[in-house]
């Protein structure tokens, strides 16, 4: 596009000043468009929320490319409000609010299985993440541990990497692994939900613990069945904290032992 940016300055100034409002309007428009595409173009075979999330990701790719930053579309000044709407504060508030839909009786049944899922999920992520790093030629225990941690979540990776003093390139790979994981979980969950029996609170709790990536789990369950979101979010929310705990300590120790 070769439009003169100065011509849009009065508009973008207002949009930048009203950042959060701009984000709400934009996301509303994206959601409306996504619902229309899902209903008419895709004939309801793909949920509208999946289309909306895909549109969000496309916007992030475009924004990151235009601004050259790391915050997706929020790197563009007049879209910076997306960082407020999609930031940790409102995200956490909304996730906690979904717990309002939890029935205490169901929680008891989902709890124990969820803990098993949580522990298994962390072990699987670290093991397969480490093996993948090794298979791709990494031999340095710090690098292997950091990439393995990135396969847990995009927060565990960088936290583990900086705790161990990994290089910025390795941390970038770990972060990328975490983001790709979140995206895969968001997009694939509604497609495989039926075949893995993801249709009840207990399965959602197990799934949340196994996947761990909060953004992926919340996005994926939202597109599958909104009633399941709180159960998955509840177990997933412990995953990152536990991952940051065991990554630089136990996992690094095991990797060092294995790689000599």
């Amino acid at each position, binding site marked *: 596009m070769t439009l003169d940016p100065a011509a849009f300055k009065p508009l973008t100034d207002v949009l930048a000043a009203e950042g959060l409002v701009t*984000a709400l309007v934009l*996301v*509303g428009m*994206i959601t409306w468009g996504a619902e229309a595409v899902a209903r008419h173009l895709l004939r309801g075979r793909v949920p509208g929320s999946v289309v909306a*999330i895909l549109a*969000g990701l496309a916007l*992030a*790719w475009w*924004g*990151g490319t235009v601004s050259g930053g*790391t915050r*997706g579309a929020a790197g563009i000044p007049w879209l910076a409000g997306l960082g407020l709407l*999609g930031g940790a504060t409102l*995200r*956490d508030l*909304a*996730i*906690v*609010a*979904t*717990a*309002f*839909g939890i029935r*205490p*009786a*169901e929680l008891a049944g989902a709890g124990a*299985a969820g803990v098993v899922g949580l522990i*298994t999920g962390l072990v*699987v992520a670290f093991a397969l993440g480490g*093996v*993948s*790093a090794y298979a*791709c030629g990494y031999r340095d225990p710090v690098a292997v541990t950091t990439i393995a941690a*990135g*396969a847990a979540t995009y927060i565990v990776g960088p936290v583990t990497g900086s705790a161990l003093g990994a290089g910025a390139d390795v941390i970038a*790979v770990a*972060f*990328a*692994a975490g*983001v*790709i994981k979140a*995206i895969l979980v*968001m997009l694939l969950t509604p497609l495989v939900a039926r075949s*893995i029996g*993801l249709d*009840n*609170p*207990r*399965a959602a709790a*197990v*799934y949340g613990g*196994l996947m761990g990536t909060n*953004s992926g789990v919340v*996005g994926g369950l939202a597109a599958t069945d909104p009633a399941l979101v*709180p159960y998955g979010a*509840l177990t997933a929310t412990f995953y990152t*904290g*536990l991952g*940051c*705990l065991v990554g630089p300590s136990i996992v690094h120790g095991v990797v060092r032992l294995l790689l000599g």
Partner: protein
Amino acid sequence: MLIYGTALLGGCLLGGRLAGAWLARQVGVAGDVGGVGIAMLLLVATTALLRRSGRLDAQTTTGIGYWGGIYIPIVVAMAATLDVRAALGGGVVAAVAAGAVVAAAFCLVPVIVRIGGRLPGRDGETA
């Protein structure tokens, strides 16, 4: 009043974050261990208590429910702020690691659900 519900929700989040930060300090990591999860449990417990004593009116419920209803738009906004460019540029290692872990985790869902016996029915509104 609407604000009662939202204030209760916010209070649960603050309480959970505090507990999570305290837990993190005890085990010696930076940040927060499960703060949001603890907050969710707090909300379940407090709203159950209020409901039992009949003090959870429709307005208060709306003050909580609005935020629960807006989480999909928040997820869309969050997706729009991810570093997708870096993820695409992270190379084969990142894609292989993420793909392997996600595939394995999907396969394990039915296996772990089966551990511990039969599924509880969704309509079991007892207790």
